[in-house]
């Protein structure tokens, strides 16, 4: 537990021992931040948005055996305006990339992105194709990557839990504001346009900074 927060995060600064002491006495104490994050992570509504093969595994995850509803995330919204989570399930082609970015821009904050499967992360097996985008993170900030082709439904559940843990760590601390509390940040990413040979620009250089390829000799 981090110390020294102010304002709304007062409860979070409370000692864990004191909390459990109070709980035994029948008094439940939580922080505003705790409630906030709990409610947010327990109702991550994904966008009903399948691109390719991984979408079938996404449906399988929502179906009876794996039952996404146990995580409060079974409400697949067809419209981006009501969705919190975009599961990029499948290959993003260059023809589809502008639409994906546009849909992301239409989602209300806070919004999260899971890149499900090899294709969404990096283009995967189709990486060397002329019409395949080499990873959706060239245009969108991705929160969780799940490798696999396609990832098992369990792997998607696992990634959702990873995302929930990530949401749990979010803070209301005014000194470290999250992206969506910044009134200047519209969280709209430029939509690439179709060019004569490729998308222009071919990546969003504002945040997509690949490390140097670690192959100098070969």
């Amino acid at each position: 537990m981090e110390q020294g927060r102010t304002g709304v995060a007062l409860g979070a600064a409370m000692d864990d021992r004191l909390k459990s002491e109070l709980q035994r006495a029948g008094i439940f104490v939580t922080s505003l931040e705790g409630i906030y994050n709990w409610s947010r992570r327990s109702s991550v509504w994904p966008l009903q948005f399948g691109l390719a093969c991984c979408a079938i595994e996404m449906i399988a995850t929502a179906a009876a055996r794996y039952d996404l509803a146990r995580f409060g995330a079974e409400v697949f919204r067809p419209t981006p305006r009501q969705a919190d989570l975009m599961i990029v399930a499948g290959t993003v082609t260059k023809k589809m990339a502008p639409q994906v970015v546009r849909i992301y821009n239409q989602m209300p904050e806070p919004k999260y992105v899971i890149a499900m499967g090899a294709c969404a992360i990096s283009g995967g097996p189709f990486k060397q194709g002329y019409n395949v985008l080499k990873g959706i993170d060239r245009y969108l900030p991705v929160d969780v990557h799940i490798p696999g082709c396609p990832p098992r439904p369990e792997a998607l559940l696992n990634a959702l839990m990873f995302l929930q843990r990530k949401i749990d760590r979010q803070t209301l601390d005014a000194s470290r504001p999250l992206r969506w509390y910044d009134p200047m940040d519209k969280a709209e990413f430029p939509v690439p346009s179709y060019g004569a040979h490729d998308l222009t620009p071919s990546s969003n250089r504002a945040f997509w900074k690949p490390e140097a390829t670690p192959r100098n000799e070969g």
Partner: protein
Amino acid sequence: MTPDAPPSGAPAESLYGPRSYRVWGDDALAGQFLEVSMGPHHPSTHGVFRMDVVLDGETVVRLKPVFGYLHRNHEKLAEGMSWLGSMPYTDRLDYLCSMTNNWAYALAVEKLAGLGVPERAEYIRVIVGELTRLVNHICLAGFLLADLGALGTPLLYAFREREKILDVFEEISGARMMCNYMRFGGVRADLSPEVLQKIARIVDRFPAFLDEFERLVSGNEILLSRCQGVGVLPRDLAVNAGVTGPMLRASGVDYDLRKVDRYGIYDRFEFRVPLGEHGDVYDRYMLRILEMRESISILRQALAQMPEKGEILHPQAKLRNFRPKPGEAYGRIEGPKGELGFYLISDGGVCPYRYRVRPPSFINLTVLEDMCLGQKVADVIVIFGSVDIVLGEADR
């Protein structure tokens, strides 16, 4: 583009002419018509398909499909890859039925290289192929009903059964969806007796599930009134437009490659080919239910006839450095969606010179506009759902 353009002498720029970025002319917006772009992000487009629809009120006046949102360059990639290397990529064509995709590709390469397939491997192919047909058709029924508004329940039941078959696939090939199971001249792994028992159990239970599924929806009044007489595909148009598979047979054309080509060992099984009468959405739905029952019968016969032991890979088949002699071959099978063909040209190298997939999903959509004209916009989704496409295959 003039029809009688001179074949030579014209410079390259003028050949491709001024580009038109609009599907419709300006008249689409001029008067009473409304242009609606359905997709590529639409809950009922089975992926990323787009239809540009012009509506007069609620009636469809024109409809143009727009493809390419899942164009993954499968053919181009395959031309730079070893023959075997394309096998796992075929899984990702029609990602609901990877086994039949494998089969079609293996069949074409075997034709090209003159490879035989051992008997036990042929039986295994039939078994996994028919199981795939069950998976595909039951998923289609679920998706179609979801498009009709039966959100959830039929799809959940369908996926419940699908999981059982996928468990078998996982056990024999190692993966749920992307099996990568067949090899040129056979299959990769043998079926153990336990797996065969599991398959027999699935086969025994499946008819009861189908009965239940039919009780659930087939007599449903909403289904009947929304499907019967909707999206009629005339017989001649279906043949002329190259429509294949259940869609063609729903229009009453008796053309099933398992009977016509008798590829593999399909001449050893007795089964009937269901035919539709009206060619509407309901026929196409019912035909798939009936085909599943025939698949069950084929599976029963295959399980009974299958030799106890035997090779599963042709002794001359090899994994690495596979170089068929120069030539070309077109191999096709009756995939769950229609005629899935692979046209391969070899120049004797380690990679195919030309690798072409004849995608049934893509060609079956040729008639989408014809079926939708004059229908209501809500029916477009139903008609589209009854075509049974997977975009991975349509766009490749």
